[in-house]
């Protein structure tokens, strides 16, 4: 059971008319892991999620969840929870009513339902607003509720589509904290974002996609090692550095490229006191993306 991936996709394709949204996607998400789908706007992240849970039917390819290829069967759906990118809440209902309604759709009833609704209100930190209509909520509160709705029925797989859009740093931390708790509970999570810090911070594995294609898949260190390139050490100094030091000096700034910046500093006994300012730029997912696509993720 444990070596069976929670999600498996093989050569999945989906087009909207001429527009290819997902182009030959193949990936496995191991049970209990968190996969980040990282890509710019229009990369095909949302389409991929919707394909995985059977909201969209792929033009080609196979998808299975927890070993079942009937991804729109009631059994599989009970295993999956989704927090859609576009808020999926009834504005005219209160948080409590929204949660109760969605809980019922998953077959929760009676005391169990009340208990889960209560849990979700705690989780989204909305206990004191539970009887207020959603239309009176701030964007961040709605996001938190949207997230909690995905967890009511205790799914094994959670799909989070940009859960931090339009959220202030405090709500954002609250959401991150929630994700941590889910990870500790052993849930499998797929998390889409175009913030590489989030992917780096939260995800066991990251899939980089662009124009519907999977460019790379691996752990964050793996990706950086494979595609991040070298680290760059720069230091401001007015006096020329000793000849034994690597790199070169342009009269103001000393610069050296290296795979292992700390080891380099140590190996050449570089004295930090020589510089008025010393900076180490390590490659991150941003540089991975830049390498892979020739574009910056922030474009």
């Amino acid at each position, binding site marked *: 059971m444990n070596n069976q991936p929670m999600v498996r996709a093989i050569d999945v394709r989906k087009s909207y008319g001429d527009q290819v949204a997902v182009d030959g996607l193949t990936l496995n998400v191991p049970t209990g892991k968190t996969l980040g789908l990282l890509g710019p706007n229009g990369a095909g992240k949302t389409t991929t999620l919707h394909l995985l*849970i*059977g*909201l*969209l*039917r792929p033009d080609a390819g196979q998808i299975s969840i927890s070993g079942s290829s009937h991804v729109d069967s*009631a059994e599989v*759906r*009970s295993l*999956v929870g*989704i927090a*859609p990118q*576009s*808020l*999926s*809440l*009834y*504005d*005219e*209902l209160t948080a409590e*009513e929204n949660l109760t*309604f*969605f809980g*019922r*759709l*998953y*077959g929760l009833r009676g005391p169990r339902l009340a208990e889960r609704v209560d849990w979700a209100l705690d989780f989204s930190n909305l206990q004191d607003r539970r009887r207020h*209509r959603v239309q009176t909520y701030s964007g961040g509160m709605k996001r938190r509720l949207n997230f909690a*709705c995905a967890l009511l029925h205790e799914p094994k797989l959670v799909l989070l589509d940009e859960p931090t859009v339009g959220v202030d740093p405090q709500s954002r931390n609250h959401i991150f904290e929630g994700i941590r708790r889910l990870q500790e509970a052993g849930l499998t999570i797929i998390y889409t974002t175009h913030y590489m810090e989030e992917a780096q911070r939260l995800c066991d594995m990251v899939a980089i996609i662009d124009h519907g294609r999977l460019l790379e898949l691996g752990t964050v260190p793996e990706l950086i090692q494979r595609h991040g390139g070298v680290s760059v050490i720069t230091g401001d100094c007015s006096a020329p550095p000793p000849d034994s030091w690597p790199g070169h000096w342009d009269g103001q700034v000393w610069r050296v490229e290296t795979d292992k910046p700390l080891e380099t500093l140590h190996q050449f006994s570089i004295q930090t006191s020589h510089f008025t300012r010393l900076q180490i730029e390590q490659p991150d997912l941003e540089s991975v993306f830049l390498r892979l696509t020739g574009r910056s993720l922030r474009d």
Partner: protein
Amino acid sequence: MGNILTIAWKDLILLSRDRMAMFFLLAFPVLMGVLFGLMYQNTGQPNPRGLAVAVIDEDQSQMSEAFLKHLVANESLKVERLELAAAQEKIRRGQIVGIVVIPKGFGATAGVFWANDPVPLRVGRDPSRAAEAAMLDGFLMEASGKLIADRLQDTAFTRGLVDEQKLALQQDQTMNPVNKLLVGQLLSSLDGLFENLDQVSKLENTDGTSGNPVLNDGFQFAKIESFDAFQKPTSTELKIRSGWDISFPQSILWGVMASAAGFAISLVRERSRGTLLRLQTSPVRPWQVILGKGLGCFIATMLVLVVMVCLGLALGMRPQSPLLLAGSAVVVALCFVGIMMAMSAVGTTEEGVGGAGWAINMVMAMFGGAMMPLAFMPSFMKSASDFSPVKWAIVSLEAAIWRNYTFTELLLPWTILLTIGATGFAVGLYFFQRNLR
């Protein structure tokens, strides 16, 4: 079933929180009902100013002309000369109170109050407007009375009649001699009376108009015979007992249409607000979503129907068959639930479906008789109305309220409504599932 109920209940709560939708659902139809009801009040209650009657002159004599002139001169009457069939159509629609037929031979005896066998006027009345009909009888008496005065004015004619009567009296062998003598003296004294009258009118009557002050008021006499004004008096007997009977079927339909339009939008709204996505990713099946919406719409529609019927009852609507009315209500609600499904499939935006929904409603309403009663429609619209479910809905409701249909007669409108509903439902479900992917 649990899922369907859950969705229906949620939709009803959403509806109850949408003030605009609630207005169109309940307040608007009530306003329409009261407004139309006040307009059609006339059909049920006496209207002393301008009692509309149709007159059919089969006699075409000088006396029938004179009789008509007296009726037209009466300000309380609105006289129309019509063919019998046209008059019957009008009385069925409640546009006139009665039909007065002046039969052949009327002129020979009209105004001759001593005539042995006067030819009677034939009058058909609207039984639901008894008070007005009684007033009509009074006016007919009055006009007949004036005819007597006219006759007496024509002394030559009257004297001829008196002479005729004298002759008949002399020839009569059956009469007891005392009576014979008395009547003979009365007839002779009339001769003297006419003599005097001639002189009086020669003195007074300078402007040439008729009217004898002495005799004008005294004699008000006419023989009136009744006939049934309705062509099909048995099974389809119409019983409009109050204006509310006419106005409520239409007003109810406005509520029903508002409910359908409101729910049609709610399905697209789920799509545009993103909540449909959560419904679709839950274990709920698409047909359960659709049935849930349908059930919500059905309950809301029934609610409108019940509220409107109760209001109608409070105001004076008197359904002939409460059971058939309940049946019609359910059938109408089911039909419009189906129409709601189809409307929601028309578009993918709230504006689109909202606009299209009301546009369809307006057309259906206009041709179906929700804007003006079917009975008052021009004929081309009447034939077009066969294609409007609103018409069949109104017919079904009217059938149970005042058209006195039997169950068998209701089967046709009910079948049509249910067929429309089922078709709409199928179309809606097809598009809903197709749009999923």
